[in-house]
């Protein structure tokens, strides 16, 4: 299924933010980090979780789908690029469309920016900055076979459901063995809308 890509293993993340610092150092948007680090159970646990762009494959990049200026380009090998600065109008459509909350808008420059899988490095056979430095391997770059060779029995998922919608991604998550039936629930479960319980 997947070629060389990033695998995210939240179980290994120590919240050190090396990935955040490293992303700032990568040349495609030097000085700005495109990675988020979330603390999933604050106050109870120190658990943390990095989010990079998931490089959605199917449907092809919702961010790119909704972009009125056709600024978000997808390479033949499935990397969803950050907005082309000559086309982006800073409308934030992509921010709203992304189910993973990835794109960021530089309000001053009125430009979108997001993880482009370090295209400046991966195009030349180097691993992305964040996955290179991650001290724990919570971010791993390689093929699924390489991952499994290093971590016997590890299970990954690349399909997520958001309500009725399924999204298949280029970047995959390591999931607990008992969770291996796909798809994996994405985002927070919707419980209530306008005071109405919408659980089935």
């Amino acid at each position, binding site marked *: 299924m997947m070629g060389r890509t990033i695998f995210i293993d939240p179980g290994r993340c*120590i*919240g050190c933010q090396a990935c955040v*610092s490293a992303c700032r150092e990568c040349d495609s948007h030097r000085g700005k980090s495109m990675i988020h680090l979330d603390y999933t159970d604050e106050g109870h*646990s120190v658990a943390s979780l990095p989010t990079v762009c998931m490089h959605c494959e*199917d449907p092809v990049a919702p961010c790119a789908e909704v972009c009125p200026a056709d600024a978000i380009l997808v390479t033949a090998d499935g990397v969803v690029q950050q907005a082309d600065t000559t086309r982006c109008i800073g409308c934030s459509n992509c921010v709203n469309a992304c189910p993973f909350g990835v794109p960021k808008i530089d309000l001053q420059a009125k430009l979108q920016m997001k993880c482009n899988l370090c295209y400046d490095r991966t*195009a030349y*056979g180097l691993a992305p900055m964040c996955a290179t*430095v991650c001290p*724990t391997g919570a971010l791993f770059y390689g093929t699924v076979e390489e991952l499994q060779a290093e971590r016997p029995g590890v299970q990954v998922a690349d399909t997520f459901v958001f309500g009725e919608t399924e999204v298949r991604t280029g970047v995959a998550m390591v999931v607990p063995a008992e969770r291996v039936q796909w798809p994996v629930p994405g985002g927070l479960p919707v419980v209530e809308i306008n005071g109405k319980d919408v659980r089935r």
Partner: protein
Amino acid sequence: MTADPRAAADRRTFIPLDPSLAPPGTRAFRDAGGIPADQWHADQNGETLVPTHCCFCGVQCGMYLRVDRGGKVFGVEPRNHDINRMRLCPKGINAYQQVNHPDRLTAPLMRRSRDEEFREVSWEEALDFTVSEIKRIQQTHGNDAFGLLGGASLFSEKTYLVGKFARVALKTRHVDYNGRLCMVSAAGANKLAFGIDRAGNPFSDILLTDCLLIAGSNVGECFPVMTQYVWGARDRGASLIVIDPRETAIARTADIHVALKPGTDSAFFTSVLHVVIEEGLTDENYLAAHATGWEEVKAKAAEYPPSRAAAICGIPAEQIVQVARTFARAPRAMAWHARGIEHHSQGVENCLTVINLCTATGHIGKPGAGYGTITGQGNGQGGREHGQKSDLLPGGRSIMNEEHRRQICEIWGIEESELPAAGTSMMEMVWQMQRREIRGLIGICNNPFVSLPNYQVVKEGYDTTEFHAQFDFFLSETAANAHVVFPVTTWAEDEGVMANAEARVVKHNKAQDPPPGVRTDTWAMCELARRLGAGDKFDFPDSRSVFDELRVASAGTVNDYYGITYERLEETGGIAWPCPTTDHPGTPRLFEDGKTYHPDGKIHLQVVEWHPPMDPYDDEHPMSLTTGRTVAHFLSGNQTRRLGALVEQTPRPWAEVHPSHGFRNGEPVRVVTRRGSEVFPALVTEAIRPDTVFIPYHWPVPTAANALTIDALDPRSKIPEYKVCACRIEHAERIDEVPAPPVAPGHVAYPETQVSRTDPLPPTAPQGRGTSERS
């Protein structure tokens, strides 16, 4: 929706990158076949990658510094070095920003009294003034009235020079270093038990173990890159035991997390040994062949049944049994510890109980079985091996041993009668400064105003000195108190070696020339020595010449560096000492032949009796205060509190408290000890014991953890008891401002920080440790 991803891709054509336009840095990698060989590369853009190591912690990750056409360091690239295999933590990634930081000191600063402002002066003037003050003080009050304090972030060559400079040029017995605040307890314990002062196993052995016990070490934050070994062991199915009052990132995934009360570690480990003995899990053959003192240790362990230890440690007794079974039954088990059990008035004893446990179970000296201590500072290991410590001469020789004295005097070309006796430890020197027994001081690469306990005492001590000079590349809080500040090089502007936590000696390379006005510590020390009349003993043009003398001075000792040369280090990426000959491969793992470095070749087990911490609890101070590090900052923060990304990541300290105290997240909480009180934003989390408060220590007053900690010392290692003192917490009105690091006159503050260094006070608690308020 489009089913075929290619369809959309076609609609939005992406023009592939032109390989000839590869950005700087990547080109060199690509040319080297993706993974860089350990050589210096220059690409067409004139960018060079200089292989070196991180300047910060004891992991000593390999990295490349990116150097531009003009010879200036401007970035970092991961390096595929054995230790870290491309990994870096945020400190390592941002370290390069220090090199050309606008806060760098570029001319000596001087003033004749502390009431005056600093003025920039020439090296000539600063050196002359320093030498005349040294002479004045020593002529009136004796040689020992002048002291020298070194640092464990210096290259080993420089630490060797610090020791030699004190004894030969200053002729004082008062020399010590800030590694005294780091891992000397472990060093003392290892010396007592094994006759050698270093970790027993390389990091790579962690991958081979079946049970990993980590005691008092927040590996995830303090030694992040070591985590890959921990997770690697987990991948192989190793069980993980973590002993820590806090649920750290490592503890979160442990099989057993023992959240014991600070200051009770030796009772815990002795009780674990008790269970091991009770259940017949000791390795009696190993003990009979390789250890002395077992009967006495066994008798003492009998006094610590789990019921008693559980009450002392504030943990369930079953946990002790579980730990004993898991550790002792594992085919191969390992124990790694750090400051959490070492920073105590019983630090040496704590480490000894861990050694007793490893020995009793036979987990010593095998692949995947052994012990290790994780050094906090980059050269925490190497920094004490060659005579910077008050009681040691080069090669780990004892300064009170006649034979050792004679050997070194021969190498140094001085009479034995000229060599001073042992001095006192760092904290004791400060007490002597308070009492005017030490009247003048040179500090090299240390910042005691933030890093020593009981700030009031430290400040008084320094304020009392008649003359104080400091070597640094930023104006630290301590340097701001000095009469003379010498601007010296960063790690990227000189070459030299460091020994990491595995005792692997690695070489740092020079990546750029120092800015005009900046000199190397080596040059400055030699120049001072020359002016003090000892120039002939300090004819060292560069680091290499110092290293060659160091090699000779260590030959034949336990800490044998003789076989290590710069060339070999460059070829191999690091060699573990002892390495007696130039064709010796080094010694990554100790005791494989079952022999220790004691004359009888045995492990000398030591009896340990637990005693309560030095600062007693009472109704006014019922809780424990414990301190530690955060991943974004390094030690006193003099270096990391100036780097934008790290300041943004962790802008200020906090007090971590359990929800049961009724604080809301971010609320001001006053922490009161017998030394003083300070206010911090509360970080409310279940990840800490209810009877314990945690404060990270990288900041100066008014938010300095060390204004609250006690200056009680371990009687043997003289390490301060940072990790436990009695305190109480109460509600407060407001939080004191976090001071920005002092900026040198004539320099501007770092312009590109993402946050201003005086930004308004904490909207929320700092990230990373969790909060109980949900928005």
